[in-house]
């Protein structure tokens, strides 16, 4: 991840907002100066070594630093981990994701881990035990007080749960189970000795080791070089897998499959039942291990949610639900969104099976979901089953996504309208199970009450085929009953459609149209453009210049001869999506940065109110103490704060789509 100026400022402001000024200053200096030692930092920031040591400790505890200790001089060199710093903004999203897919207890544990940084399991358990005990004591006290009119004992558990809804994790057994779940889902990582080395350092170390052991004289010839690369990749993978040691141990436990099932088939919400079932099957975790959050896997899950959202917008909620379940199964063994070219040279097969069968999806679907909804019905004769059931075994070649993007972009702005009556959409795009249906075809929706019902597997198949046939290629039908997703082209499509939306917002429909023309034609001469676009020359010139300033298109000058006479040269317009996206990314950082700065200004403005609400005699009885004027100001501030953070998170959606997914 390249750290631009705005990203650097954003990261240090985020740290400032969450952890205070001291760590933020150090982080900013580290980002600005790169790898530095403690005396160097002293020099840069003109802070005392004592302050620096404290600040560095905080940063390190929150996993925001890389460091390396020199083996001779014992001096540590620190480096900023900008990726983790940026991920702080995603805390809300990650917690929300955990809350919906794993339930409240898991969210609580995750939150504690986010708060305390890398934590020893033993410490975490002790902290929870402490909390539980105290809550129990309090509950008992209350119970003694109120027992006269309360039900007699025996219902202590429920009573206690009612009284203190904030106690989410009720026993250490449950805590253990929750940690096991999260570790199995790879959302939690084990911290090991190399966790805090920069990827580059690790690469260098592994390379050196491989060179020393296998190629003492240096690699000779092409074959040896390939072998060297493979050996290095292997070594790097070994380092990476160290953080999964706990997961491996859990996987070796025989009951793994059964518990997985429980986890994914919606056993997450009814925590009470699970607690008893799982408590005895989970091994007690080694309390010496240190765990932290694995953002890479969190991003995979967030990407799934994003895709489901996209599918909801384009196709419909039921199909999207099926898609969500399918993605959950598929990405169980996918631990990162983007493969590292250095490590994952030949890892395609080592990630396990890259497809999911229809039966597996069927097993994971909730039975309460009516699959017959959201599917169109057409006469059997109108369906070309051969075309619909076409099996694509290989992932698509590196072809241009221009055509796809064109169709897709068209849909992206309008498709939200289609969501309700997907009737039109179906007939527009000649969908699978209707095959070559003409526009006049009557498409009836399956009326579950009247019409003869298909069985569940067939319905599921219909949904999957619908996904496979969509212009976005949500799913690839890679075997008779096997389904997979080609994430790279799919995300590229999404990125392009996102870019199209931005272009339309900034330079209107004409601008978008011109960009699409350029995409499909490649580079186009300035003089030819008006003919192709059927627009007036002056209009086009103005629009194109406007878009050039915004960074969506660019111009290239090609001289006709050696003299490079301007009047004779060609001027070619073209559109480079990647460049436009990169520019959009930096603009997004800037916008987020400004949001936080605005928030700071608002805080300064309402400083007196905020100070008042923080006072210990005001907390808890604000209503009695504060005046109406203050209340108004306070609530306005809170509303603004909420809006600003929501805006930041929306922009983060864009950032993660462009950069991380």
């Amino acid at each position, binding site marked *: 991840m390249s750290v631009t100026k705005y990203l650097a400022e954003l990261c240090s402001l985020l740290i400032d907002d*969450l952890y205070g000024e001291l760590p933020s200053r150090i982080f*900013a200096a580290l980002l600005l100066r790169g790898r530095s030692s403690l005396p160097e930092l002293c020099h840069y920031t003109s802070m005392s070594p004592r*302050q620096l040591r404290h600040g560095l*400790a905080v940063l390190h505890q929150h996993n925001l630093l890389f460091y390396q200790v020199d083996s001779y001089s014992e001096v540590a060199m620190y480096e900023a981990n900008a990726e983790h710093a940026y991920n702080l903004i995603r805390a809300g999203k990650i917690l929300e994701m955990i*809350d919906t897919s794993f339930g409240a207890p898991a969210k609580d544990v995750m939150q504690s881990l986010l708060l305390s940084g890398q934590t020893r399991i033993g410490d975490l358990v002790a902290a929870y035990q402490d909390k539980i005990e105290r809550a129990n004591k*309090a509950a008992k006290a209350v119970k003694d007080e109120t027992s006269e009119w309360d039900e007699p004992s025996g219902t202590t558990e429920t009573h206690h749960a009612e009284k203190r809804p*904030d106690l989410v994790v009720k026993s250490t057994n449950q805590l253990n189970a929750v940690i096991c779940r999260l570790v199995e889902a790879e959302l939690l990582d084990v911290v090991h000795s190399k966790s805090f080395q920069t990827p580059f350092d690790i690469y260098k170390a592994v390379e050196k080791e491989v060179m020393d052991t296998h190629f003492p004289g240096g690699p000779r010839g092409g074959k040896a070089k390939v072998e060297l690369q493979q050996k290095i990749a292997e070594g790097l993978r070994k380092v990476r897998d160290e953080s999964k040691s706990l997961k491996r141990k859990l996987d070796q436990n025989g009951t793994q499959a059964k518990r997985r099932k429980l986890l994914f088939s919606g056993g997450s919400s009814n925590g009470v039942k699970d607690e008893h079932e799982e408590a005895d099957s989970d091994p007690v975790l080694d309390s010496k291990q240190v765990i932290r959050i694995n953002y890479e896997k969190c991003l995979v899950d967030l990407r799934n949610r994003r895709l489901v959202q996209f599918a909801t917008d384009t196709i419909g909620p039921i199909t999207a639900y099926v898609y969500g379940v399918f993605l959950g199964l598929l990405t169980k063994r996918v631990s990162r969104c983007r493969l590292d070219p250095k490590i994952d040279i030949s890892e395609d097969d080592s990630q396990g099976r890259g497809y999911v069968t229809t039966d597996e999806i069927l097993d994971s679907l909730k039975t309460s979901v009516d699959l017959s909804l959201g599917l169109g019905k057409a006469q059997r004769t109108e369906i070309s089953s051969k075309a619909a059931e076409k099996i694509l075994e290989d992932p698509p070649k590196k072809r241009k996504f221009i055509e796809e993007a064109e169709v897709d972009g068209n849909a992206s702005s309008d498709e939200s309208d289609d969501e309700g009556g997907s009737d039109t959409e179906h007939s527009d795009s000649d969908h699978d199970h209707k095959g070559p249906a003409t526009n006049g075809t009557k498409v009836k929706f399956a009326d579950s009450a009247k019409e003869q019902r298909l069985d569940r597997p067939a319905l599921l198949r219909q949904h999957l085929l619908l996904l496979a046939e969509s212009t976005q290629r949500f799913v690839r039908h890679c075997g008779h009953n096997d389904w997979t997703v080609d994430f790279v082209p799919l995300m590229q499509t999404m990125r392009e459609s996102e870019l199209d939306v931005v272009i339309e*917002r900034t330079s209107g429909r004409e601008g978008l149209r011109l960009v699409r023309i350029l995409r499909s034609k490649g580079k186009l001469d300035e003089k030819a453009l008006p003919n192709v676009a059927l627009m007036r020359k002056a209009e086009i010139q103005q629009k194109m210049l406007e878009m050039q300033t915004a960074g969506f298109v660019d111009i290239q000058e090609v001289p006709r001869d050696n*003299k490079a006479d301007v009047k004779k040269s060609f001027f070619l317009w073209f559109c480079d999506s990647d460049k436009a996206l990169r520019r959009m990314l930096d603009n997004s950082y800037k916008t987020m940065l400004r949001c936080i700065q605005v928030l700071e200004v608002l805080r300064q403005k309402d400083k007196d109110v905020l100070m008042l609400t923080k006072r210990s005699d005001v907390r808890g009885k604000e*209503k009695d103490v504060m005046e109406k004027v203050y209340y108004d100001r306070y609530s306005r501030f809170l509303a603004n704060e909420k809006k600003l953070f929501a805006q930041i998170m929306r922009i983060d959606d864009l950032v993660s789509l462009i950069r991380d997914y």
Partner: protein
Amino acid sequence: MSRGGRGGGRGGRGGGGVAADIVFDGKPSELFPKYDVPLAPSLSKKDERQVSFFLLFREQCHDGPLYTQARTWTQGLGKTQRTYGQDQINSRYGQTSKATVDPFLAVPTYSQKFIQPERTLPDLESRPFAKEFFPPELHATLDGDDGPSANKRRRTGPKSLALSHITALRTAEELFLPEAQQSYDKALQVLDTVEKNGDDLGFLSGEDDDDDWVKHRDEDDDGDGNVEEDNDEYDDESGDDYNAEQYFSGGDDDDDYGDDDDGGAGEF
């Protein structure tokens, strides 16, 4: 041809093409032209949840021992936002002089007792760390042995990680317009805490001086020496001035409060 020439050529050529269409508009431009301000759509339910989780997380961070509240960044005072170099950035921080003191808040007042004391350094010794993953030069700092007060006082006994006590984010509406149910809950909670600590929480539960007898009884039990000790710790810069467990449930501060209240009464 030079770069400048190229640009000129282009401009001229472009002008030639456009000239026919341009009509000179003699009107002065509008002072405040209508501008279509794009408005962000209102928050969806999911957005709301995400934001509130984030804000709660933020609140808890600020409640934790690793947060440093102290802001030494001075704004304004003739300084520009733009900086050229590290020295200028550094000079923004840590400027406490007579000029930067806020005259309205500098005089000690009674209500300042309730303001949470600011921490300038994180309270590292209050919680355990996985020390093997820290560079060796930070180990002493993690133990709280870093600094002038290191020899004076050592924390004894095992350290424990404290979970945050803030479990819900409170909005302005909740604070100010509590429904009947909510105030009932709050009352129960206060009762809870009172029961739990057996400590004086008179002011938290909204009781007034009428119920002073509760405090008297407690303080009689405690004795004065205890309170004195607490004060010592309180003054210590990197000391145990912050303890999450006592933040809400009336620890030293509350004792202080009670004590001073008492003392004042004695003087009169």
